[in-house]
């Protein structure tokens, strides 16, 4: 726990308390008779959830009626699940009101985990381990950092665009997504910091077709998750896994490792949600298959763009020369890892999938 948090958690006397005590001597105050109409109004009283090994967690609150999570939540106010709603309140305007559209059983746990595993790019990354690199390597690292920062930007925009459209009844998901948006903001920041610290700068903006398809999947959150998680999320996770192995200093290793840890939560939520959506919507599986087939075209356009591939190959190969041999071998190996994991996930979801031409070389042979 950070020092400031520790201090705040400790009981000390508020400097304002005396002001209030003095002001209480106010004369001539008309004090209303309390109506107490709110008293004894509870759908379930007598609840006593105790902290467990991991403290008092969000998921542990789901006891009795508070754990009843209906498939539809038509209420468009901020009535907390399990409280008594107030009639006659105009809707806030939530677009996503059914459980199948947002839910994942893991959301509550992922929320708590995200909070426990928080880190700060400013102070947790050992920046002093970044030492001058040969020009070709620095350019490659900066290019990859630029693209990863831009990927994080898309994640921030997409998550924040959907999160506020979800009804209150599924608060666990809203809360988990708050952590995911905050994670993405941190990723946006940490890759920018890496690009600007070592005599380089930002590179060329990304090719952007996958960015486009994530942002343009406006039909529903589930559809956005298909692209955000099953395609982009897994792709980034694979890149990070390889980058960690070929990092040039402890700072980079720390960054890749921690971003990967954050992204793993998003992958878990995403897969969990897609599974839930498929289980509760007859047509969902086919919709996902269609989206993936269409998405292939855009993924391939990004794939055909040489910039990211070459920058990664230089990092993996240690230089431009190295990129032409071993570096590119590692790149192709990375693509194989991505495609095969992607196919495994699709299989787990039971979504029919055929890998198109230029990516076929990466699919497992059997």
């Amino acid at each position: 726990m950070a020092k400031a948090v520790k201090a705040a958690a400790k009981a000390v006397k508020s400097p304002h308390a005396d002001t209030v005590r003095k002001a209480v001597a106010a004369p001539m105050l008309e004090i209303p008779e309390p109506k107490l109409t709110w008293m004894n109004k509870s759908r379930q009283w007598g609840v006593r959830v105790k902290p467990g090994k991991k403290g008092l967690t969000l998921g542990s609150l789901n006891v009795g009626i508070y754990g009843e999570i209906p498939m539809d939540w038509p209420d468009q106010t901020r009535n907390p699940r399990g409280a008594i709603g107030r009639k006659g309140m105009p809707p806030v305007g939530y677009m996503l009101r059914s459980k199948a559209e947002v839910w994942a059983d893991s959301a509550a746990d992922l929320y708590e985990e995200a909070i426990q595993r928080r880190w700060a790019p400013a102070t947790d990354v050992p920046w002093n381990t970044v030492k001058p690199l040969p020009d070709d390597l620095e350019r490659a690292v900066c290019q990859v950092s630029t693209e990863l920062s831009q990927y994080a930007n898309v994640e921030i925009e997409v998550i924040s665009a959907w999160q506020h459209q979800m009804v209150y009844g599924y608060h666990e998901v809203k809360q988990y997504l708050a952590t995911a948006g905050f994670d993405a903001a941190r990723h946006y920041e940490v890759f920018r910091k890496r690009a600007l610290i070592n005599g380089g700068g930002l590179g060329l903006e990304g090719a952007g077709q996958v960015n486009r398809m994530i942002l343009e999947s406006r039909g529903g959150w589930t559809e956005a998750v298909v692209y955000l998680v099953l395609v982009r999320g897994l792709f980034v996770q694979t890149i990070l896994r390889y980058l960690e192995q070929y990092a040039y200093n402890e700072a980079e290793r720390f960054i890749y490792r921690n971003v990967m840890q954050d992204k793993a939560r998003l992958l878990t939520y995403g897969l969990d949600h897609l599974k839930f959506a498929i289980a509760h919507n007859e047509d969902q599986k086919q919709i996902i298959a269609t989206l993936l087939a269409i998405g292939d075209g855009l993924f391939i356009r990004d794939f055909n763009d040489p910039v990211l591939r070459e920058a990664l190959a230089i990092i993996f190969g240690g230089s431009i020369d190295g990129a032409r041999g071993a570096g590119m071998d590692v790149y192709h190996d990375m693509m194989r890892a991505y495609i095969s994991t992607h196919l495994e996930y699709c299989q787990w979801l039971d979504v029919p999938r055929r890998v198109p031409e230029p990516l076929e070389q990466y699919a497992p042979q059997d």
Partner: protein
Amino acid sequence: MSEAEKLGPDYELDLGWMDQTGPWDTRAEESRNGLTLADIQVGEYGRVPDESDNQTGRPRGAAPRSGSYRIGNYAVRTKSEIWLDNASFLYEEALQRQWSSATDVPWHTIEPLPDDIEQAQCQMATFLTEVEFVAGDVPARWVSQTTPDFFEARQLLTAQVMDESRHMDVFRKRAMANGGGLMAATGATSGFVGSIDLSRDFTEMSARLHISGEGAVLTIFRMGELMAYNDAEKAMYRLCAQDEARHVAYGVMHMRYMAETAPERHEEINCYLDEAEAGILSGSANPAGQAPIVSEPLAILLGGGIAKFDEGFKKLVALRRRQIQEYKKRVVSAGFGARFENGRSRINEILEQAAAA
């Protein structure tokens, strides 16, 4: 045989991208607080445009691609509409001061309370869990609509969404930790004109959310010890107050930026403040306001039970005074203090009427 030999032309490199970069030779340096956002405001990378034409989502300062699609569709592209000068500092503070409602609140210090107190505490917790996330939903929407060229402000809003998520959660936890439960929702933040949700301008929203709404809540959280019956509740209010102070600071600093850079909007902003002041005690979003569903539990908590309701109510009125004083200070600090001098603000009148009601 290496794959290079197998695949041949695939292994030829174009490398044209290597010379297409933002300003090169940049060397940001760590400061006392690590490598902060402020430390990477180096050269061109620190320049924030007054108007942003970035519709492709590229990181500020990166080299653009001429063929990029305009996928951004950002509604907020004018700096003054969302900017504040110390966003970087507040964001870094937010990162340093994250806390966990599961493990940083000493829940084991909660002991059974008299029924009237527990009910008041649970009603207050229900209200807070209900309203806290309006400050998550609404900033999230603005995050999604703001150009990344203003990312420092956007980072801070993202941190606010995170903070509010924890606030929504800590009060739900409190309601269920001590033999009580959730009680009645108030509908305080529903979809009516003039609500935080429906504002179509960021500054209007911020005046209502950051300055009046969260400002009022901040005063109450800071006084948390007066309504807390154990260390868990004290910690809960104190930790929330720390976060809330940053959210209020956003509003104040943003409004100050507006005061300095957008004189053509002064009158309009004064109108938002008129509305905010009119609702500060009559609307049910302020737990020290006039709605009995929130003011009664608060008075019971402040007084120490129903039997001491009168004493509690007196404290509540003192708390309202404190809220108004702090509100005025913030508006003065934001550069709109003239309204308290020239007779435009009716805030004192509103306060006296509320006390007499």
